[in-house]
């Protein structure tokens, strides 16, 4: 019931906002975002208190892993939504709000269904809902970015469909009820009997397909363009949660693959792609001259780290990866939102043009610095804890190599942000917009310093599902 309400809110909001304009649109947008956040948190709490919730004959189903993602989408969605009116003050808001909530809706459906077929439809839906948002500014560059995004992600998702078909093929050999053979709960039950070679092949397709959406190298090429050209609230959503939805889709299949094909298979693929992503991102982080592109490559790096954590597996690696997804979502959405304000003030997205941020725009500069430090992986922020968890999981299995990459990245970030050139800024933003940013930073501090009650329990319960 609650799950249905959660999905209905952004959908109804999107429909109503399609024709709304002016103040009505802004108010309706705020209401939709607020209600979505409330419902998302309510579902998460309900699931973590008891059993998974389901609706429509189990078609919609949220377990603790779904709840984790639902809460994240709710929180990042609200953060991004809070920035949207400020962004739209400089452009025409036509249909932006509607597509925004449609985008949130597709992501919520992807993580709260038991049917991996519907999950595929929803993940594809995220591309279709967001492609016009990427091209919202109608510049040459944003047009090119949206074309690349649509083409690469459509091909990627079609490959994931091939993987889904093969999973279904393996499933119906064991199980005659076609309507339920694509259910995740069924797959988990059937996993020991699924044809191992077919499942391996399917998993390769699934990882390549959903990995495209997640921004894993070498399928990441759409990501820096789309992230840097999209409006800031959309960049925050894409980087903060859309990539994680791709990871979530892979994560859903991993336990079944581990059982059907043995644990080594998924692990080696995830480790290879994770390492490659971190390495590629490190190389491009050195060379980016546009700060939004740099942030996009930083997303590739962090998704690579998440993938490494999932590859290392075990309780530590998996919990670290999940925590890292959450921390990255918070930190990255803060910097993307702030980068939008910086771009408005300076009129440029070049790193060289926006120096002296701390002096000119201290209310933007200080949280920007804090979130960047968090993204680099320094304490006291949550990303430090989750990175240490992932790296420790690697160490216990004899993978000290990763630390070298981590060190390299930290160096990169420091160089890029150590000595900003000084050029005058245009304006300083007020106190009003500070609240959502401060709230997100506070959450990051909490996951870094003192875990709120229930967080460790929630992670334990997810690990029990994903890495039993």
């Amino acid at each position, binding site marked *: 019931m609650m799950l249905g309400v959660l999905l209905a809110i952004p959908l109804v909001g999107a429909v109503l906002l399609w024709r709304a304009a002016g103040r009505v649109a802004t108010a309706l947008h705020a209401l939709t975002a607020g209600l979505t956040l409330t419902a998302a948190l309510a579902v998460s709490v309900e699931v973590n208190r008891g059993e998974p919730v389901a609706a429509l004959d189990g078609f919609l189903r949220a377990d603790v892993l779904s709840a984790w993602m639902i809460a994240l989408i709710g929180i990042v969605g609200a953060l991004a939504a809070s920035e949207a009116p400020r962004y739209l003050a400089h452009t025409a808001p036509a249909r932006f709000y509607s597509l925004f909530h449609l985008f949130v809706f597709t992501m919520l459906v992807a993580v709260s269904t038991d049917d991996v077929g519907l999950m595929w439809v929803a993940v594809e839906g995220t591309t279709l809902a967001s*492609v016009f948002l990427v091209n919202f500014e109608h510049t040459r560059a944003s047009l090119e970015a949206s074309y690349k995004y649509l083409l690469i992600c459509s091909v990627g998702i079609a490959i994931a469909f091939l993987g889904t078909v093969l999973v279904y093929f393996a499933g119906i050999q064991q199980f005659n009820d076609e309507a339920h053979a694509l259910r995740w709960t069924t797959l988990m039950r059937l996993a020991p009997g699924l044809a191992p070679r077919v499942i391996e092949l399917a998993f390769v397709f699934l990882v390549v397909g959903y990995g495209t959406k997640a921004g894993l190298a070498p399928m990441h090429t759409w990501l820096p363009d789309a992230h840097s050209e999209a409006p800031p609230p959309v960049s925050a959503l894409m980087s903060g949660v859309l990539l994680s939805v791709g990871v979530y889709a892979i994560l859903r299949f991993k336990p079944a693959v581990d059982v059907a094909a043995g644990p080594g298979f998924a692990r080696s693929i995830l480790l290879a792609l994770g390492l490659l992503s971190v390495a590629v991102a490190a190389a491009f982080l050195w060379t980016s001259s546009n700060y939004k592109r740099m942030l996009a490559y930083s997303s590739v790096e962090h998704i690579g780290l998440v993938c490494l954590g999932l590859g290392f597996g075990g309780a530590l690696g998996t919990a670290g990866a999940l925590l890292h997804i959450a921390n990255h979502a918070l930190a990255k959405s803060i910097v993307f939102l702030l980068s939008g304000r910086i771009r408005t003030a300076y009129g440029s997205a070049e790193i060289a043009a926006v120096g002296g941020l701390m002096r000119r725009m201290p209310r933007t500069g200080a949280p920007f610095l804090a979130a960047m430090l968090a993204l680099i992986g320094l304490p006291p922020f949550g990303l430090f804890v989750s990175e240490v968890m992932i790296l420790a999981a690697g160490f216990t299995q004899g993978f000290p190599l990763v630390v070298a990459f981590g060190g390299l990245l930290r160096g990169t970030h420091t160089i890029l942000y150590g000595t900003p050139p000084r050029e005058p800024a245009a304006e300083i933003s007020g106190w009003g917009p500070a609240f959502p940013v401060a709230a997100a930073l506070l959450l990051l501090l909490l996951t870094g310093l003192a875990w709120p009650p229930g967080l460790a329990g929630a992670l334990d319960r997810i690990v029990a599902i994903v890495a039993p």
Partner: protein
Amino acid sequence: MTTTSNLLAFLGLVVTLLIVWRQSWPARLRLFGAQSLLLAVLASTIGMLAQRRGLLLVAAVFVVVKGWVIPRVLARIGAGAPVRSIAPGRSSGISLLVAGGLVVVAYVIMLPVTAAAELPTEGAIPLAFAIALIGLYLCVTGRDALGHILGFLVFENGIFGLAILATYGLPGIVEAGVFLDVLVIVLIMEAVVVQVRREHDSIDVDRLKELRG
């Protein structure tokens, strides 16, 4: 059923190779329409022989979406584009060679699936996968937006064929999602291509190169 499915899938592959070979856009578009019809016939044949009513419906929707609506949209996109987008002097010999190689690759990759399958249609599964691979190749090497879209659609057709042959049709919601999906992608592509043409006076995606690094 084995003979029919093998024959239809093989014809589908031949049409795919013809798409690789031909360079004139209207001809490739007609070939794509023919391929879609072949796959619809394949779906309805399997639907009748294996007593799957649902597949008949799927075949009907497939004919409408991929045999009629999408070719029309593509024709609209292509109107005004030069008939041959490829630079003169470029032969399709190499492409055909690659496509032939991909057929072999498809057989190798699909070995685990054909080994696990106990279906009368299993022999045609690698053929469908070969169509998908060649479509992917066309998409990746496409010189303009039309080439990309066509490659993507052939890729989709191959996967559809594979799904029909290996599973006799997916659950309804997934099939519906796939159709909706392809349709929306093509419509969005049209919107994007129209805008590219307005901005750049051409649909040659080589001109889209502002975003690098």
